[in-house]
């Protein structure tokens, strides 16, 4: 019997660029199709910090770069800066 795996993705937004800082925002996408997370579906984050997700088995595959602000726009606010993407490979059967 063959086992197929699918990717589950967790996006955590942290309070600073440190992976062990608090989670301030979160999103998830489920490649198994078993769940359908969506906008505004939870008020409580899945983990308190980025490291807590690692401890639970999520693998970090991308972290936001630290990019200096554009000259003249240093005081503007825009997207969340500290975005970390994690994955988990989940068996889905044959």
């Amino acid at each position, binding site marked *: 019997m063959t086992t197929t795996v699918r990717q589950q993705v967790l996006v955590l937004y942290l309070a600073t660029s440190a992976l062990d800082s608090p989670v301030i925002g979160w999103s998830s996408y489920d490649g198994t199709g078993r769940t359908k997370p969506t906008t505004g579906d939870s008020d409580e984050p899945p983990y308190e910090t980025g490291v807590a997700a690692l401890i639970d088995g999520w693998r970090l595959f991308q972290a936001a770069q630290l990019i200096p602000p554009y000259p003249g726009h240093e005081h503007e606010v825009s*997207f969340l800066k500290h975005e970390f993407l994690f994955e988990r490979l989940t068996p889905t059967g044959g």
Partner: protein
Amino acid sequence: MHLLSSVQMARFVAQGSLRFDGVVPAELNEIAVAALTAGVPHLPYGTPVEQAFPAGSFVRRLIDLPVIAGALHSLVGPGPTVDHHWLHVREPHGGEAQDLHADAIIDVRKEAFDVQLMYYPQEVTLEMGGTLSVPGSHLRRTNESDTGRYQNLRGQTRLVCPAGTVVLLHHGIWHGGRRNDSGRPRYMFKIRFNPTVRQVRLWNTGDLADPAVAAELSTTFPWYENATGRLEILNRVKLWRALTGDDTFDIEYWATRVANEPRRVAIAAS
């Protein structure tokens, strides 16, 4: 007219919204769905309120309620124009949640702002998919649904409210209609107002020196990053200076410190 206080205006500048629970009387709420689904005439962009909603019409009765009229006057001043209006319906057990977005396009105005009125004629429960909004997101410069990847932020508001609730929002607020998981349709009527005057001291300024003003403007939110949260306060200071005409106002010296570039030349010691 029930003008806003300075403390309420400061709350709007910090949070990007003001909420008025259950202020619309039951006799209006009871006819709202029929009146609004029957259709409010389509308007050309920029129609003056008086022309858009004739005296005696349902919408005019809504926005002439003293608490609503006073708040709108305080925020956008006399004689605003109607940008557009729309009845949003989330069908029972249907539809998808909207991506988190700001309406229209990225808006880089420094001082002027539009106000969006959201009116909920019926009680909204958590299951009915009341509007998701993010307090304090209105000064972020992002374009429409480019924020769609953000599903949940700490301290977000998933609106639950009694019938007859009105929320007034800064045009830049991040928001989205949530999925309706209930068996009842959920209605929200939205009107966007554009100012036609400079938005300076249009409210009841009698409490301008109240320490509660600075306290409101200093409010922080759980979703702010540590560093960017400081910039949020700075940007509120800039907006408060514009609204009051007081270019010396500051909080925690944020604006004054970074503007200090002395030109006076010291006399050299002999």
